[in-house]
């Protein structure tokens, strides 16, 4: 077991394109670290540099106290689970799991003991003599994990291990991985593009965009204090709403009306002109259902376009127009997030008891304390609470 330290890691391909650009991440011993981001953000490249399947252009990669930049994968003592499992089809499940041990020239007794141990843990006992071709997706996934846990590796690396499973199995395996990691207490780096996996599994999450580290923080910190527009839009489902806004005193002017925000936040955003306000869907509520004392001040009335009732909650969609300056920034953001939004609209999550209907003018309450304000030019979060936002590289230290 060991910590993994990445110092200013750069990966440049032949054409000069930096797939990973000056990324520094420290994974503590026993920590579960998630690398997350949309496709092409360099997260898999980074993982492959840790394990040694990609060369590192510059920077230092340390496992424990050892600099491993120039070591072959087999000398790094890491275990990896590949996206498509990469099981050896000509070997039985038993031999697949035993493969790393056989390479390490262990005695047959030792191999047998360790393989049985691993197969007990993963409940693979009845499949040991079968070939991978005859197994289901979930079983193959478990064999791949068996091959990883069977040897005493310094760390586990997962490369989108659940992306080939169907939704139900994915949920089960996710819990299984979390349980296994807690039990073995082994340093883990896990790559995913799925923000649910990132939020539920990780001790800390590193959000990457186009090879650059955006924010490195705990899931809660990422959710409550996103460092910039990208992180704010990436974490959370349905995603955070972005609205054009201007600050006047303690009031934020939104397309639907004014909302009062805490003085401290207003002060940081004062005099910056047109801003982008970020409000999560669940920080809205049907005004008639919001608690009495909270109703004051921050309600507005808007025409609801579409309503989706899910039982426990209701999503209401409210279209709005935004100025070109903001629109461009939001379109770029949408592109970065691999999304394809057709129109600017507000998504509001209401209590399931809400009776708001489509086409109706609804009275909506918004929690002014939870509004974030972003600089439209840089995307930086002006109202971030730095004490509770983990590490945000590249951000100017606010006064």
């Amino acid at each position, binding site marked *: 077991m060991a910590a993994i330290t990445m110092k200013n890691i750069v990966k440049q391909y032949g054409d000069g394109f930096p797939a990973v650009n000056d990324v520094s991440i420290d994974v503590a011993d026993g920590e579960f670290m998630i690398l997350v981001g949309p496709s092409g953000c360099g997260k898999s490249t980074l993982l492959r540099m840790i*394990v*040694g*399947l990609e060369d590192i252009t510059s920077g230092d990669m340390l496992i424990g106290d050892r600099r491993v930049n120039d070591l*072959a*994968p*087999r000398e790094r003592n*890491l*275990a*990896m689970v*590949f*996206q*498509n*499992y*990469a*099981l*050896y*089809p*000509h070997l039985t499940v038993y031999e697949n799991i035993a*493969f*790393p041990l056989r*390479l*390490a020239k262990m005695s047959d007794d030792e191999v047998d003991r360790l393989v049985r141990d691993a197969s007990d843990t993963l409940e693979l006992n009845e499949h040991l003599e079968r*070939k*991978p*071709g*005859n*197994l289901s*997706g979930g079983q*193959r996934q478990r064999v791949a994990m068996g*091959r990883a846990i069977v*040897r005493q590796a310094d760390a586990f690396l997962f490369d989108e291990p659940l992306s*080939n499973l169907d939704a139900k199995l994915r949920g089960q395996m996710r819990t299984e991985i979390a349980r296994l990691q807690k039990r073995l207490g082994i340093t883990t780096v896990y790559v995913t593009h799925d923000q649910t996996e990132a939020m539920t599994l990780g001790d800390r999450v590193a959000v990457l965009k186009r090879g650059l580290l955006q924010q490195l923080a705990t899931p809660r910190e990422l959710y409550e204090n996103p460092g910039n527009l990208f992180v704010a839009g990436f974490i959370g489902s349905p995603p955070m709403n972005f609205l054009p806004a201007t600050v006047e005193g303690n009031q934020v002017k939104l397309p639907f009306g004014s909302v009062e925000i805490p003085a401290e936040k207003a002060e940081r955003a004062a005099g910056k002109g047109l801003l982008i306000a970020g409000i999560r869907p669940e920080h809205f509520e049907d005004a008639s259902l919001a608690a009495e004392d909270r109703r004051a001040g921050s309600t507005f009335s808007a025409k609801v376009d579409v309503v989706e009732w899910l039982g426990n909650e209701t999503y209401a969609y409210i279209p709005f127009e935004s100025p070109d300056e903001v629109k461009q920034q939001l379109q770029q953001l949408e592109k970065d997030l691999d999304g394809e939004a057709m129109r600017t609209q507000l998504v509001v999550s209401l209590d399931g008891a809400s009776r708001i209907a489509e086409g109706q003018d609804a009275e909506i309450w918004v929690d002014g304390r939870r509004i974030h304000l972003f600089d439209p030019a840089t995307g930086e979060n002006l109202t971030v609470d730095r004490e509770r936002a983990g590490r945000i590289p590249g951000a100017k230290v606010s006064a």
Partner: protein
Amino acid sequence: MQSDTKTKAGTAVGFVLILVWCLLPVAWIISLSFKGAAETAAGSPQFLPKDPTLDNYKTVLGVGNLSSGDAPDPAVSDDFLRALLNSFGIALVATLLSVVFATLAAYAIARLEFRGKRLVLSIALAIAMFPVVSLVGPLFDMWRTFHLFNTWPGLIIPYMTFTLPLAIWTLTAFFREIPWEMEQAAQVDGATSWQAFRKVIVPLAAPGVFTAAILTFFFAWNEFVLAISLTSTTGSRTVPAQLSFFVGPDPFNPPYGQLATASVVVTVPIIVIVLLFQRKIVAGLTSGAVKG
């Protein structure tokens, strides 16, 4: 339902027609091999032997006594068995070397990036297309100078030249099919590049290796032009070439029965080999390696 029956009947008829078309010459050869000398010399032969005899087999293989009570002519069987040994030896060595070299070359072509990769592949293809006959003259001269004329290597080398390109192309295609992650997984599991190649890639490429081996073996086993031009004695002459020397004592009466028998004897190993290797060529061996 009726059209179903019709389709089946049609298929069966077509099947039989094609079988007859393909196998009639083979059946004729087999039938001929059981006919005595008198019968093959007769003016109007019939398909099946009138009185079947094993004399031809005894003569060619040099065992037992003929039906006349004489011992078979040792000159015929000695030459034939010697040629059979040459055929086996040359074909096996050519196949083995060809497959080993082709496997290594194909792996490099499929996996590594190097300058002139396309050139190597194009040249290999060009060599495979080259007409064998055009090389006979130059090779004859060269082999005499190098003292390779009428030796095993004298045939093995040109056979490899012609079979390597095909083997390389076949194997490259197979290697490209194997997910690269298989090998990376092995490396992460602690294998050296060589171990990953030997323990993971080669077993997975086995169907390709066997395909290449069979193709090479067939070529070497059946080749005639080089075999007759680059040999002068039974010291290295292979069976196809040796058959052309089965003229018998009477120039107007070739020993058709013996020729047919020799043909049957050289066909049997090929059939056995195909049936043996067929089991190895299991399609879809890689299924289950990755998510299907």
